[in-house]
């Protein structure tokens, strides 16, 4: 929030896009959900009638935000790749645990899986 500075009361598109990249890098899901709501509101306001000054101002903001949008796209792509890796990793780990459980291995290493009496 602090990075948006004085303009936060009425932030430019560029600042919103940059904030989205930062929030995604930090995996700040709540902030991203807030931003999604803000963007929904902005999209609704675009449908209303506005004078030419407002339209030109929005077009300028959109042009200036283009580079930040490209960065946001790349961060999103990197996150998708990381999510893929983490999902595969979790599948592997769970698979290992299931295998161990079925084989009745005694050296179970997850403390919460045993009840202290050896009953898995």
């Amino acid at each position, binding site marked *: 929030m602090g990075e948006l500075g004085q303009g936060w009361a009425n932030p430019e*598109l560029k600042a919103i896009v940059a904030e*989205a*990249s930062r*929030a*995604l*890098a*930090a*995996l*700040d*899901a709540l902030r*991203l*959900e807030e*931003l*999604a709501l803000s*963007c*929904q509101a*902005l*999209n609704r306001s*675009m449908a209303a009638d*506005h004078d*030419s000054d407002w*339209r030109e101002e*929005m*077009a*300028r903001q*959109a*042009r200036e*935000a283009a*580079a930040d*949008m490209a*960065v*946001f*796209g*790349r*961060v*999103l792509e*990197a*996150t*998708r*790749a*990381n*999510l893929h*890796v*983490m*999902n*595969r*990793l*979790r599948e*592997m*780990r769970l698979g290992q645990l299931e295998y161990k459980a079925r084989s009745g291995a*005694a*050296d*179970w*290493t*997850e403390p919460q899986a*045993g009840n*202290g*009496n*050896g*009953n898995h």
Partner: protein
Amino acid sequence: MGTINSAMSMIGGALDADQEALSVVANNVANANTTGYTEETPNWQENAPITIGGIQVGDGVTETGATSQRDRVLEERLDQQQQTAAASTTRLAALNNVQTLFTPDSGSSSATAGDIGSGITSFFDSFSSLESDPTDNALREQVLSSASTLAGDISSAANSLNQQSAALNQDAAGIAGQVNSLTGAIAQLNLEIESTSPDSDAGTLEDQRQQDLSQLSQLVGINQVTTENNGLSITTTSGQLLVSEGQNFQLTTGTVNGATDFFLGGTDITSGLAAGGGQLGGYLTARDQDIPNVLNSLDELAYNISTAVNMQNNAGVDLNGATGTVADPLIIFNQPTQVAGSAAAMTVVMTDPSQIAAASTGNGTGDNSNAVALAALANQAIVVGQTPVNYYSNFVSTLGSTVSEVQAENTAQNASVTQLQTQNNALSSVNLNDEAAAMSTLETSYQAASQVFTLLNTLMASALNLGEQTTVA
């Protein structure tokens, strides 16, 4: 009594096991702020059940040691992302230094590369001024002065680029020693870890090795292959062996065509290292690709302006009525013999302003038609199919796009590293619930970000569309 003894034994064993487990937890707490420490969890082994009155009863557990909560796949992914991030960070710093040379130096009258664009315009404008009075000595001196400024700006930029290249070369060469030191340490740790595993957990040694791997990943692009007994082989991303379990192979340097190249076992692996990532990849990409591209553009500019202007001046008649000869040509700039090196060597060789050939042959020394032809070069495609100003403008624009592209890459890569570090910290925690929560955060963030991206995309398209409608109206 047997039952009571068994119960007491069970309780005693449980207390012992708890004590051991507490030691593991205490170790975790004590190392909470230790860089590179991976949390350990106690291992429990069930005791053989005992039979009381024909019924089997559990005999509790024994604590058999601790296992580090590490995940090699995630750590490798993190190392790999750090390699690409380190490469783009290093390359970006080098590119920013290059771009500074071509950024207009506002508020300063000093001759910098940033003035090349206006220098080109001023130089050709000085011929336009000379058209009005080709015999005016002050106007002739102005031509030589603006030529000298332009040549000075271009050669200054080229020399600065050569200095930046030399500095990158030195930085790159310094990496080899650091790589050898780390691969030596990793080989030694491999031996120690292999002698420990699989009978017990080599957590502390693996933490040290992971820290070394992380540092190595910052320096150079590597691939990791886990071997028997938790050993590790490391190759460069192009496949040359750096560490094979307990043995490391020295990265050596040598000078090839004035630049430092890198060798493994006598093979020059410089190009593979440049593409591989890490700081070394960034240094080498900037040294061998980015700066040569910029220098080549400047060389083309210098070579073609010098050649075209010299040829046109040599075709005219100077204020003394003289024309150029093979032995004594009427040239303003030193005539380059090849494109390479033209920018750094660009200089004004004409010292007498009366030698500027403003007149055409047979028209008398007061004629201005060759000055007109010289001024017209500004609008002719004399530099690789473009006018000099357009060529320079496109070159600066391309450089800016490259910097912007690398900046975007770097931001995304650093974001990816931050995410993976967050996940790695979560995976080092002690239970699967924490791990699931971390995964859930990653998934929720990705979904929310996808929604934000879609909404912003729609918003920007609408905004641009509204702007166009306004312009048309």
